[in-house]
């Protein structure tokens, strides 16, 4: 976890992707080894599966698990209803999977597995490759739905109603730019929010450990305030983990609304 030896603080080490079993498995020039990133994706899916099974028993009188799962599905369903309208129901499966996968990945990455020696929690959403692919999937669905429903009329999205004619070329370019930058901002937001939070936590953790190693006055002046701050930041990170998953799902539904209803 934190760099315990000496005073070296290495907060970026936690983002290193490496094979779990310690050996690379190279096939035809490509490294196909089972990495810690892949392991945590599998764990996320297993945790999500276990959570969903609690609500899939079709009881007549819903129990606690059923209520928990239905609260989430109802939340996403309500969000799509509010943003897209009655046609939003078709997108509930996709947006729900997206939201739950990001939420579980964010929270699993925050769990304190580091207290077991040799085990490192890994936040899969702290890599632009993962969040970027999720954003591209969302963007591709927006494009498919938009062109599928409206054909080339979809381009009227870039010219808002009531634009004065001389302004149309300029507005078109600006709107097109803001449309094309969406997948980047969507992926970048999640990736940077998770990365920044985890760097901060690891820096504070290193302060705590180094303060204990030095002992004496450092214990009171460095370790204690850092530990208190770390507990607070951890709570904030739990909030950020939920908010970022929500924002990703919300922006996806807003973009889908553009594709379904145009302006």
């Amino acid at each position, binding site marked *: 976890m934190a760099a315990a030896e000496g005073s070296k603080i290495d907060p970026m080490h936690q983002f290193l992707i490496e094979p779990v079993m310690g050996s690379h498995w190279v096939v035809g020039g490509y490294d196909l080894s089972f990495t810690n990133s892949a392991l945590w994706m599998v764990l996320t899916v297993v945790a999500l599966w276990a959570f969903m099974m609690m609500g899939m028993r079709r009881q007549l009188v819903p129990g606690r698990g059923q209520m928990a799962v239905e609260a989430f599905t109802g939340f996403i369903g309500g969000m799509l209803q*509010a*943003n897209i309208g009655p046609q939003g129901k078709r997108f509930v499966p996709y947006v729900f999977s997206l939201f739950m996968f990001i939420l579980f990945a964010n929270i699993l990455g925050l769990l304190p597995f580091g207290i077991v020696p040799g085990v490192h929690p890994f936040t899969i959403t702290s890599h632009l490759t993962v969040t970027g692919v999720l954003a591209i999937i969302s963007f591709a669905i927006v494009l498919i739905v938009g062109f599928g429903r409206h054909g080339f009329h979809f381009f009227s999205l870039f010219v808002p109603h009531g634009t004065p004619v001389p302004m149309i070329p300029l507005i078109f370019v600006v709107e097109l730019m803001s449309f094309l930058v969406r997948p980047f*901002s969507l992926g970048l937001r999640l990736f*940077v*929010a998770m990365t920044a939070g985890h760097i901060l936590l690891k820096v504070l953790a290193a302060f705590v450990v180094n303060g204990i190693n030095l002992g004496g006055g450092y214990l009171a002046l460095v370790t204690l305030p850092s530990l208190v701050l770390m507990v607070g930041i951890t709570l904030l990170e739990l909030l950020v983990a939920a908010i970022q998953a929500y924002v990703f799902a*919300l*922006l996806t539904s807003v973009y889908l609304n553009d594709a379904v209803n145009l302006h």
Partner: protein
Amino acid sequence: MDAEAAKLLGAGLAAIGMGIAALGVGNVFAKFLEGALRNPGAADSQQGRLFIGFAAAELLGLLAFVTMIILVFVA
């Protein structure tokens, strides 16, 4: 000034952008609360818009962070 020093100074200056984005995020929630206290009945239906505004303000702070990371680790 040596190039390494300029890089680190630039990364430090980029941190100012995160502070300014913090003002923006605070402003989004402050204005929402102000409006919500005036008309609590309409507040719940506007939460989606609140988070869209929050996300837009936050993104600009995160871009400052990306600038810092690029200056320190890539450039």
